[in-house]
């Protein structure tokens, strides 16, 4: 791998520059470091950075634009050498090496901080570009409002999003019906009733649920919960005989979301000032009356925010629905039937060999865009509510 070698040579140049510049600086001050503007190491760092940055920059840009070649290697090495030479030339006792190095480091810090923006831009660009290509082949009205999802790679596919959206929302609703009561009551108990010792054990135990990868929940849904629901509820009641169902995915996803709801709600309930509780208790209400009539109303906006965040998590969840919900795109009210979601279909359309000119592949990007917009809107709204609420008592 020649690129590795060039990187190594540039690194060696930088090291050499470091040593030489340090010596040169000391020599220009007749060996007395006190007469230098900066500590000797800063002169060294200045030379080293002057070699590294141009060398690696040239290498990186070239590598992105065209395949590696001997010219690229030469260009990178010349850039690094030139950097060292310039740095060495300017090295003398009066050179403000520390300020120079700190400026460069600050620049690097800013570049790193912008990676976050670059990621967002990258996400938006990749979603929008490919989606635009999709909508050039396939009318957007049919995508947004179509009720048929029958992709066939031979052509003539119906790619309506509504059945997928329905499955997504139905499963998320069931997940929230499981997670919100359990999570909320657990949070109330932990913050208002539990002794510190109980809390110290229970809180981490519930949070283990948040640390378990979703593929584990997926397998659990597929192997344990799905067959259980089918054999004990769906088949006896004549509601269907599929192990994968909205109910399976919803319940398992609900379990996954419990710690999400409980730890956020716990924070929010703890943020309600003690004086409100004291006032209510002092008037003679029981602890539960205080919670229902004083604490919860005060914490309500924050709890709503937490639920919205959980909802956004549920909508974007992939592995549980891939393994637990099935792949049938349909709109039905029966929770024991297999349905499918946006994320399942993104995985379905994009795994394996793809032809990036066919609408059947490109539709995944349009689905991704839809997902991104929905979750982003929920997140922004939720964060807005949570922030606004937190400020109230601070």
């Amino acid at each position, binding site marked *: 791998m020649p690129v590795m070698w060039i990187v190594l040579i540039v690194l060696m140049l930088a090291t050499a520059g470091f040593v030489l510049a340090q010596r040169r600086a000391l020599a220009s001050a007749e060996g007395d470091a006190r007469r230098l503007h900066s500590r000797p190491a800063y002169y060294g760092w200045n030379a080293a950075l002057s070699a590294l940055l141009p060398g690696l920059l040239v290498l990186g840009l070239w590598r992105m634009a065209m395949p590696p070649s001997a010219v690229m290697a030469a260009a990178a090495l010349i850039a690094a050498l030139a950097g060292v030479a310039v740095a060495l030339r300017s090295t003398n006792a009066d050179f403000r090496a520390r300020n120079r190095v700190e400026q460069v480091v600050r620049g690097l810090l800013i570049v790193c901080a*912008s990676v976050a923006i670059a990621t967002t831009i990258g996400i938006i660009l990749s979603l929008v570009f490919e989606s635009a290509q999709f909508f050039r082949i396939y009318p957007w009205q049919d995508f947004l409002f179509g009720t048929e999802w029958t992709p066939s790679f031979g052509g003539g596919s119906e790619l309506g999003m509504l059945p997928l959206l329905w499955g997504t929302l139905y499963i998320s609703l069931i997940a929230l019906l499981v997670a919100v009561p359990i999570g909320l009551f657990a949070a109330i*108990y932990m913050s208002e009733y539990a002794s510190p010792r109980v809390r110290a054990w229970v809180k981490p135990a519930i949070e283990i649920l948040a640390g378990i990868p979703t593929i584990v929940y997926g397998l659990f849904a597929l192997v344990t919960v799905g067959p259980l629901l089918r054999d004990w509820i769906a088949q006896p009641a004549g509601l269907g005989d599929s192990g994968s169902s909205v109910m399976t995915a919803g319940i398992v996803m609900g*379990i996954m979301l419990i710690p999400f709801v409980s730890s956020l709600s716990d924070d929010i309930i703890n943020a309600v000032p003690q004086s409100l509780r004291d006032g209510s208790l002092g008037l003679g209400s029981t602890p539960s009356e205080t919670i229902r009539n004083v604490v919860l109303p005060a914490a309500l906006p924050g709890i709503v925010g937490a639920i919205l965040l959980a909802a956004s998590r549920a909508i974007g969840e992939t592995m549980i629905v891939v393994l637990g919900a099935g792949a049938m795109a349909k709109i039905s009210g029966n929770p024991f039937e297999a349905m499918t979601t946006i994320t399942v279909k993104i995985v379905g359309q994009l795994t394996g060999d793809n032809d990036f000119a066919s609408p059947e592949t490109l539709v995944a990007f349009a689905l991704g865009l839809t997902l991104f917009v929905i979750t982003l809107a929920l997140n922004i709204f939720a964060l807005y509510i949570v922030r606004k609420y937190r400020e109230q008592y601070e």
Partner: protein
Amino acid sequence: MTDTTPDLVPAPATPAQNSLLVADARTRRRNAAETRFRAYGIIAIGLAIAALVWLLSTIIADGAGAFRQTYATIPVTLDAAVVDPKGNRDPEEMKKVLTLSYDKLLITGMQDYLAQEGIQIAGLSDQDVKGFLSDQAKANLRDAVLADPALVGEVVTVPALTSSRIDGYFKGRVTAEQAARDSKTSPEQLQLADALHANGALETRFNSDFITNADASETRPEAAGLGVAILGSAYMMLIVLVLALPIGVAASIYLEEFAPKNRLTDLIEVNIANLAAVPSIVYGILGLAAFINFMGLPRSAPIVGGLVLTLMTLPTIIIATRAALKAVPPSIRDAALGVGASRMQTVFHHVLPLAMPGILTGTIIGLAHALGETAPLLLIGMVAFVQDYPDAPPAGLMDPTSALPVQIYNWTRRADPAFFERAAGAIIVLLVFLLIMNLAAIWLRRRFERRW
């Protein structure tokens, strides 16, 4: 609930006995409501913990079997005429002998053993004997011979993998009734297994191959292992650590210590908060579009997976690092600035070392999260069937590999139920890694965290 007492108007004949010792009806009702409310809380916590226990216990019960495997130890005569037709013991020449010939040796060895031990099973066909051992057994025998040509002509007792059904029989997954219905196994084979087991020629023991082997094809679940997946995951974690830790720390230092309060800073802040909540599959789409289609990096390669997971982990690391930096008291900064350090020196010489335990804790938790992530890796082609171990980094970063969670997903898609056992076993491996990482994070926090 505003508890007014509306029924006070008709005055009772005898004045109510307000006693502190005997509760009246209304107090009892309110106390009951209180008890009920507390009970809801306890039930909720109980349900959450029961779900956790249920989840973990089923996975462990399902997966424990993957760590044990049934082997047959039967003497096999390595007939020189078959294994080394040219007779010069040259491994290069012997490589031309296909695995099929070794199959015959194994079957002959088995039949000789049965005759010698006087084991007779009614209705046992040659096909049953052939299907008794795994397809992998002959390949393993061939590898053993090629590795040590001196074995040719000798009688060796190499432990041979049995087929997944025989293995399942000893783990309770396969029963005689099932075998009668299953086309891939017969009740006679199970009788044979019992007979061999009674003779001590079959044993179920710890299966280190499950950790080190590569994935195996659809028909050989007994030979499938996690070696490639563990290596792939390790490579990706290496990339995430090398990229996400420095970039995340640098970004946090800038935002926390240097950034002026302006539009750009606000934009970055909002961005990070939102990136933390973007569904992971969207990062997969980004990886597919940007790294594979646009930059032309290879599919299924750890480098792409590592980059995608880096972008996904960055917000977590940034949020943790900023909290750690914030926790360093301003007096430290003031003291450093007071003795003449520059702001950069203050941060790098004093604040950052003090924040390091918090940063590392956050990083480990971020890495643990990345290790378990599946969805984005599916989109960048990591589901492909990979049987070759990748090279050592850095060249190996471009080789196709699998990853632990994707391998689990892959196995759940296969028809043979033996793969479910493997998938659950792989989850145990994954959970052990996660447990170690989280314990390390907790240890770091306990050991080094300072309260100011």
